[in-house]
């Protein structure tokens, strides 16, 4: 076996998500790559949660598969809901104190997990370790790999280690998958949100402000937990309006700053987003989408905010919108976002979604590829003198539209930023000539931004470069598309659009030109990318494969739908 999928299921609070991630880490040590999908509800106790871990020997895996080889059930509900996902020769590992009804003809491993933890006076959450032990035996993964990960995750004294061992010893599985050790280096397992947090830090983030909103919240949690190590600040103000206005104050003062939210929170931020455009204050806004409108479906996924993000904020001003497709890209593009914001003094949106934000994935990250691009920041009087800018104007008109940005606090220098239309000094103006000059100044950055983005790879092409069938998409659908490509044995070219504003029309046109069939894949109902492709690349999309039930595509489902549209 070179690929295996395991589903962990239970009620909210049972620790299912933790188990999914731990397995991914264990597999990573064993030379296997993993992708973890967490399906959980917006509640704290009860309901049904599950995690699917898909692991592959030696090679990357970018999506979870809907059929699984093993189900680890903390309760009866899990078996009832997921037994049909089991492949032939699949195994159910279950807490025999909590589940009694099992399907006929399926291999099972019973563990009296509830009884064992109760006798040890431990909380029910410890059942996970017992079942994990049994699972490792089924998989044929050495117990030692599990023990190492558990010690790293829970510390040397944790009772989890002993329970893992006990589960491994007790289990007498009727089958073993006999997975063999991979040769790949062990890799870290990160969610998209963790990658965003680390990418921002690497690129010099000093202030992160956010009001909690799923699925963006774990960026705040990650940075809050790391802030003392890095001497930075992660803080939660009273609401999203305060978040972004505070962020603009911090950035004006000279701190590399980002904020994070989901669609609803970004809706509250839009007036200040436009202020960032007007005042030319560098800011990164991470928007992690969930199904809307309004409160929508908080803990599920969607790509329904593309048109909103592209058009958010009144008035006309340049913006950059970046859409990473997987966890590795989330790291590099979060760093790009901060660098672009400071280099061009514009607001930058990093547009992700629940599926990318919250799916732990084995990743290879080379931080050496990221540098801090300062932009035209001026920190001292000497620097200003060197530039010949003693009579400092915050909005000096320059060749590329970007003015030197002096930080307030330099002796003899006055830095005036303004929400009103202003002259070069930053003083309010209503003069028609001044107004158009300033509008032109800001917009004149765009061609330079386009050039800059071109060097960062606004479009990536995967699969059969010479194929006359093309799939075009953006964001987290990348994983399922690449897996579908593999499942179908190739047969199409995948054009991944990584920059949505300014839209890389030329690049997209070049890649789609000459294709007989172009299929747009999106996790939404109205296919905004198809409109952008037509508008900016002049290419008409022939088919749309859309999904808007809060769930991400799985490779098998997507392969079937793609075949249908491409043949049809």
């Amino acid at each position, binding site marked *: 076996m070179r690929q295996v999928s395991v589903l962990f299921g239970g009620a909210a609070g049972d620790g299912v998500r933790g188990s999914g991630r731990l397995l991914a880490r264990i597999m990573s040590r064993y030379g296997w790559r993993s992708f973890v999908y967490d399906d959980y509800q917006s509640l704290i106790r009860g309901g049904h949660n599950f995690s699917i871990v898909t692991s592959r020997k030696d090679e990357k895996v970018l999506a979870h598969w809907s059929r699984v080889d093993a189900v680890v059930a903390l309760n009866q509900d899990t078996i009832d809901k997921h037994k049909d996902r089991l492949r032939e020769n699949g195994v159910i590992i279950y807490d025999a104190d909590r589940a009694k009804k099992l399907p006929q003809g399926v291999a099972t491993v019973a563990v009296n997990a509830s009884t064992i933890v109760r006798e040890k006076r431990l909380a029910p959450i410890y059942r996970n370790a017992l079942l994990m032990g049994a699972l490792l035996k089924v998989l044929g993964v050495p117990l030692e790999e599990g023990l190492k990960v558990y010690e790293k995750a829970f510390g040397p004294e944790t009772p989890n280690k002993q329970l893992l061992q006990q589960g491994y010893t007790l289990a007498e599985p009727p089958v073993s998958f006999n997975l063999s050790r991979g040769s790949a280096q062990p890799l870290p397992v990160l969610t998209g949100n963790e990658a965003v947090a680390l990418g921002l830090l690497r690129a010099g983030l000093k202030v992160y402000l956010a009001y909690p909103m799923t699925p963006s919240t774990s960026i705040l949690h990650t940075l809050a937990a790391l802030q003392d190590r890095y001497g930075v600040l992660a803080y939660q103000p009273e609401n999203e309006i305060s978040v972004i206005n505070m962020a603009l104050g911090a950035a004006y003062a000279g701190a590399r700053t980002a904020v994070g939210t989901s669609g609803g929170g970004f809706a509250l931020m839009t007036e200040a987003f436009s202020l960032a455009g007007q005042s030319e204050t560098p800011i990164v806004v991470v928007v992690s989408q969930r199904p809307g409108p309004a409160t929508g479906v908080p803990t599920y996924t969607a790509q329904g905010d593309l048109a909103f993000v592209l058009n958010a904020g009144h008035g006309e001003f340049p913006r950059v919108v970046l859409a990473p497709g997987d966890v590795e890209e989330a790291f590099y593009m979060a760093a790009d976002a901060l660098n672009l914001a400071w280099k061009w003094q514009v607001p930058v949106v990093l547009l992700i979604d629940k599926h990318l934000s919250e799916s732990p994935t084995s990743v290879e990250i080379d931080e050496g590829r990221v540098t801090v691009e300062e932009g035209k920041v001026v920190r001292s009087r000497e620097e200003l003198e060197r530039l010949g800018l003693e009579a400092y104007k915050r909005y000096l008109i320059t060749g590329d539209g970007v003015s030197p940005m002096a930080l307030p*606090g330099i002796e003899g220098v006055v830095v005036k930023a*303004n929400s009103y239309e202003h002259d070069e000094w930053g003083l309010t103006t209503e003069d028609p000539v001044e107004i158009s000059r300033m509008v032109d100044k800001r917009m004149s950055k765009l061609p330079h931004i386009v050039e800059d983005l071109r060097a960062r790879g606004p479009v990536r092409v995967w699969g059969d470069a010479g194929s006359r069938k093309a799939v075009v998409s953006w964001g987290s659908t990348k994983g399922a598309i690449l897996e579908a490509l593999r499942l179908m044995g190739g047969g199409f070219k995948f054009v991944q659009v990584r920059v949505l504003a300014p839209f890389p029309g030329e690049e997209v046109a070049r890649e789609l030109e000459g294709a007989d069939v172009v299929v747009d894949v999106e996790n939404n109902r109205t296919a905004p990318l198809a409109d952008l492709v037509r508008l900016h690349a002049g290419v008409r999309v022939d088919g749309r494969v859309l999904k808007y039930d809060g769930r991400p595509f799985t490779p098998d489902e997507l392969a079937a739908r793609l075949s249908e549209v491409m043949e049809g």
Partner: protein
Amino acid sequence: MSVVKLKLDTGYKITWCPGCGNFGILAAFKRALQELFDEGRVRPEEIVVVGGIGCHGNIINYINVNSFGALHGRVLPVLQGIKLANPRLRPVGFAGDGDMLDEGISHFIHAAKRNADVTVILHDNHNFALTTSQKTATSPRGFKGRSTPMGNPEEPLNPDVLALTSGATFVARTFARDIGHMTRVFKEAIMHRGFAFVHVLQPCVTWFDTSKYYREAVYKVEGNDTSSLEEALELARRFYVDPGLRLPPRERIPIGVFYRVERPVYSDSFTWVRGPLAGDYSPVSVGKVLEELV
């Protein structure tokens, strides 16, 4: 400390109505700054003024110091962001009653609650002046604005009581026709460590001319116990503005520093932040964190 002489005027043409109370605020603020500079207590480059949107907000164009023109209602978040990023700066906000107590009231309560180390000066003219006079949170009940021609149906809010009960550590009231009094109060507010709120009674000669009313009503308190919240609240509550500005005023209105105490500001808790976050663009390594996630 060498004293840098900075021309405090921008030369920008002032667009307030002749006689507007804002002129007094501008004069007193410039005088307060000049005295603080001359006394060597503050350096000009440390000052950042943040203006809201309304007649009051235009003040940022008239003073030649660092400034940020914020959105309507959002003076306080911007002030706090500046201070977080660079604690060496002294951000001073100019807000309107509509601006800070209608549109942005949540920020006011929270800034006071966390005792953010910023100063905010409220130009209280009891109406939205720039939008040609509608009621605000501080308009008296019965106030006839253009959106309430039959009279404001709501009771006004008392900003000083709100500041005190929300946790502000410096609360003062002053009068835009008394430049000497304002100058003293502004200087104390700027030098205060913690959330300093200055309530300026600001006549709007065009829409709600409180000049005569306040001149008769206002009296200076001195020798009050500024460490007593009870006493401060008692003074703060004495604030009645007649909707028709009938004279003589029914009650007298105290002005002065009502409250001044020392309490930790929220950012004192950020002990891990060493030095200003602003201006530091050195790359950091996240390699160890990645290693921990293997």
